[in-house]
């Protein structure tokens, strides 16, 4: 009789524990959705350069992207040329990018196109800073989702002084700037 009771009590405790775990599941899963990924809010980025150094990957999964739609296609590009550049040419001594990852090509007078070679970019954000200071901010940093290893806690997010990292749904994995009718930059 007493063993019967003991077994029943044990079963009860087990069922209660399973119920508790299930309850936690339900509560936690209530707002459930699909997977999330880390991404940089370009409006909050302060171009500190930590994206290049804090990522668990080397080189970082953060790369510079270019929203061509809002680029001014300037000859005098703050993202491409060093502030002290002597000439507006593709000479290495004039380039701001330490990896020479931006290529400049002539389109039509007076416009130049700037394309980033992702395989060279290290995500240091030097061009982003230049473009933000002297341009339309069409260059900005984004986490490239095919490179990112999706850490549970993003090491860069923890170190970001601008609090620019956040989790977003994996279906829309980027926070891109686009041109709208009013001429406003939007995510």
């Amino acid at each position, binding site marked *: 009789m007493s063993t019967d009771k003991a077994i029943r009590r*044990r079963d009860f405790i*087990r069922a209660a*524990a*399973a119920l508790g*775990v299930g309850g*936690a*599941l339900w*509560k*936690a*899963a209530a*707002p*459930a*959705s699909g*997977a*999330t*990924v880390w991404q940089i809010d370009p409006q909050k980025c*302060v171009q*500190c350069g*930590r994206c290049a150094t804090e990522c*668990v*990957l080397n080189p970082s999964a953060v790369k510079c*992207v270019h929203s061509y*739609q*809002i*680029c*001014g296609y300037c000859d*005098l590009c*703050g993202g491409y040329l060093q*502030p*002290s*550049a002597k000439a507006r040419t593709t000479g290495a001594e004039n380039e701001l990018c330490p990896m020479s990852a931006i290529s400049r090509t002539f*389109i*039509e007078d007076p*416009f130049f*196109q700037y*394309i980033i070679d992702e395989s060279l970019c290290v995500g240091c954000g030097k061009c982003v800073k230049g473009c*933000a200071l*002297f*341009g*339309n*901010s069409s260059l900005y940093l984004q986490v*490239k*989702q*095919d490179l990112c*290893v*999706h*850490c*549970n*806690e993003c090491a860069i997010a*923890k170190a970001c*002084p*601008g609090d620019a990292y956040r*989790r977003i749904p*994996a279906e829309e*994995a980027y926070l*891109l700037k686009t*041109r709208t009718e009013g*001429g*406003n*930059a939007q995510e």
Partner: protein
Amino acid sequence: MKLLKTLTPVLAAAALFGGVAWAEFRFPMPEFQSGYTYPEMHTPMPGRTNDLWDTVLLAAALGLAAWLVLKRRSRPAVFGLTLCSLAYFGFWRQGCICPVGSMQNVAEGILGVEVVSIAVLSFFLLPLIFALFFGRVFCAAVCPLGAIQEVVAVRPVMLPRAVDRVLGFVPYIYLALTILAVSTGSGYLICRYDPFVGFFRLGASLNMFLAGGVLLLTGLFIGRPYCRFLCPYGVLLGWMSRFSKWHASITPRECIQCRLCENACPYGAINIPTPDKTPLTAKEGARKLGVLLALTPILIAIGALTGLFSYPMLARIHPTVQLASRIAGEEAGRYQGMTIESEAFRAGVKTQDELYAEAHAIRADFKWKTALCGAFLGLVIAVTLASLSMAGCRDDYETDRRACVSCARCFPYCPVEKDEVAVAEQKT
């Protein structure tokens, strides 16, 4: 500066025409005559996040581990599965996401801070549910953190029971701190101080490499130091395993008290028989229970008070509190120069008063939450004391269901098992 000079007229012109609606748009977007089209932006979608495939694999590995431990009773097979898990969940998946860390996501989900995906939730729940039915088979052969330590445990020595018990209290502290950090938005402590993920990824800060290296070196002689004396998820698994329906037993049939398994467990999870102990009389039992019941609220109160007094120290793990104290220090002239954080703050729109108010609110939040943590730890001490003093009488060598990681190391020590195998062989 030369550049700025060149730019000034352009800026002035742009401002004059009033075409700038957004502060960033200094230059008008060109209207191309040459039929130029914008290049495509390269925005690849995530290749592999924590998807269903990993959940299925985890469930399969747990099922296989349970079968190998409880039915096959084969130490080599369990060890083989351990190696496979180390290779896949450790080195291939780079140790993320793991059930140990997933408890933080789930805690955030319960607090409503973050949405938790089904995959993360199942990573958290599956090992717990398996522990509820089969014991800690997850620790035995699936967890990559456990696996790397299982591999290096080549010459483990047994720790004195008392040392084991005292160090075994640390995971509870770690658990409380983890939940505290998550609930206050201070980040994921388990992930930040994961000692082995650096090896899996072949990259970490020097300090974490050193910590991992020290733990692995310790693990040569003291079995599974992280699992036993740090892992906060192990606490939850222990609670589940304590009430598990089935559990690995040292002997497949009846214990013959041969004492051969006495030193078999490097993790201190074998309870030795207590034949001399006589059961407590009702009067003694009642007195003991009374003392424990009186002691419990006192211990909880002491814990809560400790929390109330130590919260300013703990609040410093929150980045906003750190920033506020840095800014206050800079204003008072205690620091030279600025950090990247303080520079970013000063460039932003938030005022210092707002920052201080925010930090103050966070500290207040820490105050009662730290007190709660202290109370929890007091309760843990009380329950531990109760379980120590109320321990029942045992006639056989048994596994300590809470601490046993079901690694099957003790199985080959049992002569009953060998006898059984020999009989089976004779029959065939």
